[in-house]
């Protein structure tokens, strides 16, 4: 079927779709990534969209992008630089051309490259002419051909123009020899009530595919074979959906109902939305009047016997500060999800960052230790959300789960677990037959108190934010008792270290250089380490998911290395955290604050520099 003359087998390819925020680029990107995943490729995606829903059309500020990376080998990041860019207008070209590999292919909707639009994007002259030497431009009259191909359908102009993205998608499908069936089925299901829309999208998709085939304007065609993937059943999942599902799974496993008190905030909102949609699983969601009420309703639900959670992003976590102290004081189970974004203040709501680590660890009044854990890939947000709930329940403590904008919106194929294979959650419920329930009597080993659910006869008790007497829980201002209780709260959290996995070295344990990361930077650091090792250089890598308490072997393991580089999307918060908690720890820091993930390229450059090679 293919007339492709010059087929190049590629291990991996990066594609970026870009256009106005109303151009449907997110949908287009998801279609390509799902099709590729079904084809058997490993895939990683990342949307890059403006904070404004519809920023002025044709301006660089209004450009919405979707990048995906797929391949026949393991894919750990959405990729640094694109092999193929689709630019629906000059602004999209301007915003993204620096992210295209030299010699890469750029498909442009030439109809949108009018003098007016070019000027609007801030170009002085025709950008295609200017960049022709460095890139392979395919100038496709996408608007014109879309109109033509739908001329005899009774569709209004606006709806016609809305299908343009399918023309671009069709072209890219041809370029990588992908079947159109998945996308066709998608439209048939989604718009089964409006057959005209289904027909229009399918027609335009085919038109794009055929156009690409006819013009043979593509000098190089790529073939990306299926990846060798561990057998199993898969689905594409974003970090936010995975987080929501991990919490529901934990509730089911613990035999509790799930309650989420939350206030919408970018980029965490989808967790609340997904939970709200899961009434079938019995999830109770409470869209509160503010962030404070979000956590407070959750604390009330925890007191009343639900698995309770609240979801937020940096500024929201700041508002939850006082209430999280109440959860520490009353020793109630609570999961606080913080999807980090660029800060401080409103900062960069739609962009990623890791600058809330210190806030999570220390952002409360008084001595208020709690557990902090961090997810590191979109799909393992499920595992760490589950783990956060498990620790919260089993250790009767609030747990802050840190994810970030990159994990939250990024997607990847996920090998699905079965519920029966997930770990058991043992809820420390008070014995209903206890005739002398003491709310602050602790387990000797774990220091965990028992949870008595209101409604249980005979276990009536009072808790509160005031310091309480050891064991009995009555209000106490006894000086020595405050010391005892403070120590109990600290020891209880320290004990969690006995229940979490130890750190593991990735790469060469005997390497001179140890690279350290945490949370959402895993994929990029891991890819850079892998590539360095491919070049026959030795490098060791350790990634933290448990931020507090630290894994038990942290000191032993880190003390083996003299040259350590801590890579973070902040000014060095983990580096500082390790300096305080690991005796003799010293390190170099590699930090980035641009609202974007690391690139594998820049990490490699830094690693090579430290390895003594330029």
């Amino acid at each position, binding site marked *: 079927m293919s007339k492709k003359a010059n087929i190049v087998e590629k291990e991996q390819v990066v594609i970026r779709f870009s256009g106005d925020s109303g151009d449907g680029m997110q949908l287009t990107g998801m279609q390509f990534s799902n099709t590729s995943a079904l084809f058997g490729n490993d895939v990683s995606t990342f949307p890059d969209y403006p904070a404004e829903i519809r920023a002025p059309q044709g301006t660089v500020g209004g450009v919405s992008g979707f990048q995906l990376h797929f391949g026949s080998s393991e894919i750990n990041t959405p990729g640094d630089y694109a092999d193929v860019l689709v630019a629906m207008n000059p602004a999209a070209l301007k915003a993204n051309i620096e992210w295209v590999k030299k010699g890469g292919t750029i498909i442009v909707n030439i109809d949108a490259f009018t003098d007016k639009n070019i000027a609007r994007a801030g170009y002085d002259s025709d950008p295609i002419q200017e960049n022709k030497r460095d890139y392979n431009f395919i100038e496709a009259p996408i608007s014109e051909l879309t109109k033509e191909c739908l001329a005899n359908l009774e569709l209004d102009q606006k709806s016609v123009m809305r299908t343009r993205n399918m023309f671009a998608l069709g072209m890219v499908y041809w370029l990588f020899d992908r079947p159109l069936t998945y996308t066709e089925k998608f439209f048939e299901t989604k718009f089964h009530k409006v057959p005209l829309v289904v027909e229009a999208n399918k027609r335009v998709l085919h038109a794009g595919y055929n156009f690409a085939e006819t013009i043979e304007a593509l000098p190089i065609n790529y073939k990306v074979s299926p990846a060798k993937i561990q057998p199993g059943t*898969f689905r594409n999942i974003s970090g936010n959906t995975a987080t929501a599902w991990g919490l529901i799974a934990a509730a089911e496993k613990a035999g509790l109902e799930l309650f989420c008190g939350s206030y919408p905030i970018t980029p965490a909102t989808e967790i609340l939305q997904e939970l709200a949609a899961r009434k079938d699983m019995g999830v109770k969601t409470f869209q509160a009047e503010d962030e404070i009420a979000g956590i407070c309703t959750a604390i009330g639900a925890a007191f009343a016997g639900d698995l309770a959670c609240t979801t937020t992003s940096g500024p929201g976590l700041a508002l939850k500060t006082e209430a999280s102290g109440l959860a520490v004081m009353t020793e109630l189970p609570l999961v606080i999800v913080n999807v980090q974004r660029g800060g401080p203040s409103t900062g960069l709501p739609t962009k990623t960052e890791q600058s809330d680590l210190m806030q999570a660890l220390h952002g409360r009044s008084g001595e208020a230790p709690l557990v902090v854990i961090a997810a590191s890939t979109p799909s393992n947000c499920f595992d760490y959300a589950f783990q956060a709930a498990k620790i919260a329940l089993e250790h009767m403590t609030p747990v802050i789960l840190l994810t970030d904008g990159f994990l939250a919106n990024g997607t990847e194929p996920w090998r699905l677990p079965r519920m029966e294979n997930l770990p058991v959650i043992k809820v420390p419920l008070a014995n209903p037959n206890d005739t002398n329930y003491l709310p602050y009597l602790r387990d000797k080993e774990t220091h965990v108190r028992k949870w008595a659910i209101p409604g249980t006869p005979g276990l009536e008790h009072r808790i509160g934010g005031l310091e309480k007497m050891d064991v009995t829980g009555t209000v106490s201002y006894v000086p020595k008792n405050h010391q005892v209780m403070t120590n109990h709260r600290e020891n209880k959290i320290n004990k969690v270290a006995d229940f979490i996995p130890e750190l593991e070295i990735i790469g060469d344990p005997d390497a001179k250089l140890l690279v350290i990361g945490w949370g959402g930077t895993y994929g990029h650091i891991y890819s850079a380490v892998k590539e360095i090792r491919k070049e026959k250089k030795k490098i060791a890598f350790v990634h933290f998911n448990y931020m507090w308490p630290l894994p038990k072997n942290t000191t032993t393991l880190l003390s083996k290395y003299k040259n350590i580089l801590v890579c973070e999307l902040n000014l060095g918060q983990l580096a500082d955290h390790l300096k305080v908690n690991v005796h003799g720890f010293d390190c170099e820091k590699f930090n980035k604050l641009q609202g974007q993930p690391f690139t594998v390229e820049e990490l490699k450059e830094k690693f090579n520099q430290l390895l003594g090679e330029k």
Partner: protein
Amino acid sequence: MAQDIIKLTAKDFKSDQEIRWCPGCGDHAVLNSIQKAMADLEIPKEKIAVISGIGCSSRFPYYMSTYGFHTIHGRASAIASGVKVANPDLSVWQITGDGDAMAIGGNHFIHVIRRNVDLNLILFNNEIYGLTKGQYSPTSQFGAVTKTSPFGTVEYPFQPGELVIGAQGKFFARTIDMNVKLSVDIFIEAAKHKGTSVVEVLQNCVIYNDGAHAALSDKEEKDNRTIVLKHGEPMVFGKDRDKGIALEGLKLKVVSLTDGKYTEKDLLVHDAYEPNPGVHLMLANMKYPEYPVALGVIRKVDTPTYDESVTKQIKTVQKSAKHKNMNDVLYSGNTWTIE
């Protein structure tokens, strides 16, 4: 079981904790009234959760033998909402003060009322900050001289009833700490009402605002200065039942029943169940000395509650849901298998 049959008395609701309110504080009387009401309601102790914020009155849960939670300043409405939604079988009581509910907790206060979460919100209004030793509150009268207003306040006070009705409140009642009998009756009505029942208790702070409500509790004159509203009854008041409330134009008017111009037939008949809040608002806003202050249940309108709607919605969705457990959800939709 035996404990279901034994009738509890007010004493059974007392905890073993020493009560630390000042001698003579109005809170003592309110505590007794609520314990009496709970005994009369015959709700088992384990089904009661008392949630408070911060302030003198918020120590309340410690003095009860039920489940209790003394939380943080202003947030009791939110925490109580979470308790009720998580565990709808509980009878949830929120204890709060004028500062806790209407200053720091104003946002949660109006929203719990708007949602109509089924809880009993007992608002102790002493028009002063007591626990912090005497600063003005959002209900302190204009010009009140306090520690933070040594030259008098220059702000206008909230009328709790007006705020409740403005937030679409469905139940509002008012009582006075000294009147235990009236308080018990009102607390019972509040508990029986499904939805957010707000009871404003005019409470005396003996140390920092003594006598704030003295005009209304004065033994000789109280019947001339207050009116106890009863649903279905004409609005008669006065020691000698010689006065009444009538509607004149769009305003309420105090009329005499002895000067021959008005009879009982001309008076307003209290309709607490009327959904239109117009008259309720006027009644709630009556101020002495122009009017008698209204006590009793001013407004009581039945509307579905938030918590029952949440439960109902979940049940409805689950009835026709494709997915019965998390395995179903995980493996639903677009999945693919690699062998």
